[in-house]
């Protein structure tokens, strides 16, 4: 078991180094060096330029610079934002819980709706319900989510006035951030009004971000169930006289869940990518919106650090899914 985990972890290291190299190189490709970007059009004296270049290590070879960068990253130094002069890591850590809360809710929504829909569609294969679910999920999968978000705002926030348009919490409430998750923080503070406010802010972004994963989960569940339902042991279970609820729930679902769990794990990347659009539409104060703002402000250290941190979290989640998978399914653990 330990060996399995260690192999998986060691496989991740080259990927992490590769991502680090990628973010390092990408930022070098930006026209103009970081000092010119920082100085702008005011100009700078040649001696001062040389001093600054030395200070930032820009006079060293690219290779040396990369090693320094990796060293800094490993010791948790992701540089300073050019705009706020705060550490990129601390800005990221402040904003990340908002994105995580949104992503978790979206995933929960996708699973809670997609799983039953997929199971029912498979059980009632060829029925109107099946066609409806398949059509809806293909539409959801094809949805430009930025537009979908705008439509939902137009309908539920503007026309009906049911939900707020943007943000995480009404300004009248203040909750001490403990976990960074608004739903938990408001509950811990015992402020139920604030909790309701946080919840109503969360609904639309959750639906928007969850739409694509929902479509994927529903489709995957349906096809996995169809495959499993055709197996011999299902026929045996039925022949044995078990009622169909038990056959579907106990015998079929368990095995159908394996590919579904993988797909859910793989959706983490989609979620964090989709968060960029969702957070921009709903002014959600998370890392996605922060990245787009950093791009618009030409804050390259923030962009670099942010991308690296997001990529790292995706890698870590995938690693976690991989390991969990091995724990749950011995065949995979012993395969290599």
């Amino acid at each position, binding site marked *: 078991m330990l060996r399995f985990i260690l192999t998986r972890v060691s496989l991740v290291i080259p990927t992490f180094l*590769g991502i680090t190299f990628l973010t390092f190189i*990408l930022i070098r490709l930006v026209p103009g060096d970081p000092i010119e970007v920082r100085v702008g059009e005011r100009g700078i004296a040649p001696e001062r330029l040389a001093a600054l270049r030395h200070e930032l290590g820009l006079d060293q070879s690219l290779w040396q610079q990369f090693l320094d960068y990796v060293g800094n990253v490993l010791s948790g130094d992701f540089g300073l934002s050019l705009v706020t002069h705060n550490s990129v890591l601390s800005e990221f850590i402040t904003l990340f819980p908002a994105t995580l809360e949104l992503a978790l809710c979206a995933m929960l929504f996708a699973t809670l709706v997609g799983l039953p829909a997929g199971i029912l569609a498979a059980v009632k294969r060829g029925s109107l319900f099946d066609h409806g679910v398949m059509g809806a999920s293909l539409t959801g999968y094809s949805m430009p989510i930025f537009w979908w978000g*705008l439509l939902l705002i137009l309908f539920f926030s503007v026309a009906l006035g049911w939900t707020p348009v943007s943000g995480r919490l009404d300004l009248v409430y203040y909750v001490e951030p403990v976990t960074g998750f608004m739903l938990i923080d408001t509950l811990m503070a015992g402020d139920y009004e604030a909790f309701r406010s946080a919840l109503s802010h969360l609904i639309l972004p959750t639906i928007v971000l969850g739409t694509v994963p929902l479509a994927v989960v529903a489709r995957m569940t349906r096809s996995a169930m169809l495959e499993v339902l055709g197996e011999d042991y299902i026929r045996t279970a039925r022949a044995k006289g078990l009622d169909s609820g038990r056959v579907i729930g106990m015998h079929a679902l368990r095995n159908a869940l394996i590919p579904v769990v993988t797909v859910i794990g793989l959706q983490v990347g989609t979620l964090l990518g989709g968060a960029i659009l969702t957070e921009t539409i709903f002014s959600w104060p998370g890392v996605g919106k922060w*990245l787009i703002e950093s*791009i618009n402000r030409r804050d390259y250290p923030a*962009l670099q650090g942010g991308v690296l941190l997001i990529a790292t979290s995706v890698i870590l989640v995938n690693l976690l899914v991989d390991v969990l998978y091995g724990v749950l399914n011995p065949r995979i653990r012993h395969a290599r």
Partner: protein
Amino acid sequence: MSAETSTNAESAVTVSRPPHPLTEFWYHFKQNKGALGGLVVIALIALIAIFAGVIAPHHPDIQYRDAILTPPVWQEGGSWSYILGTDDIGRDMMSRLMYGARLSMMIGLIVVTLSLAVGLGLGLVAGFFGGMADVLIMRAMDILLALPSLLLAVVVAAILGPGLVNAMLAVSVVVIPHYARLTRAAVLAEVNKDYVVASRVAGAGPLRLMLIVVLPNCVAPLIVQATLGFSTAILDAAALGFLGLGAQPPTPEWGTMLASSLQFLQRAPWVVTWPGIAILVTVLAFNLLGDGLRDALDPKLKR
């Protein structure tokens, strides 16, 4: 299922030869009504894109200052000269959407061609030569795959600078790993089969083996992926346009159109509705077609 058995029995009696692969493909493909619908819609959009200059009622960039934010014709105040309404500076929505179709189809075509060519090349090399080349290429692909695709596209577009061409490049880079992996897997499945060994023994060089012997037997999954690639390309390019990192105004790209009229969302919902519907319908059509192609080309799924 019974229909298929009966046709097989019939063909066994009347025709001794098996049907041409294309005939067989079409037989399976046309069973899928959704895929047929997708094909028809795509053909329509392609026609609109090609003949946009002829059929569009107005020039996409001309501003009719006396007709700003005219609603669609069926709403009060609508006019037949602007069937789908006008935007915030009086440009005809329908004409802009038609020219936008031209852009979206072009984006899809260029992105798919570019990423397919690069991904195919990388996959062939990795699958054929194995060893170090394989490890290096596939590790690099893994790295690209570890990043959320939209995030990577956003970063590439931000670094290259906003614009349609750069957005297309960004989206192409993001999807290369899919083609590389598919090609490699297909090559690995084929490369040890007898016909390949036979050609090798007969003295075929590596290029001939790669491109003429093996490649034709790997195209089925690539065709499916390329079709689905159109929808990804159109969707991602529109998202970049929406974020201000893709095509710049006044280009009538659908995502850019959406973003530039955001503040009129409440007053004139049609300026936001139409481009979104255009994106959704096009992407949906390509996804339907891709699903249909997969079902028709993949023998495992044939009913």
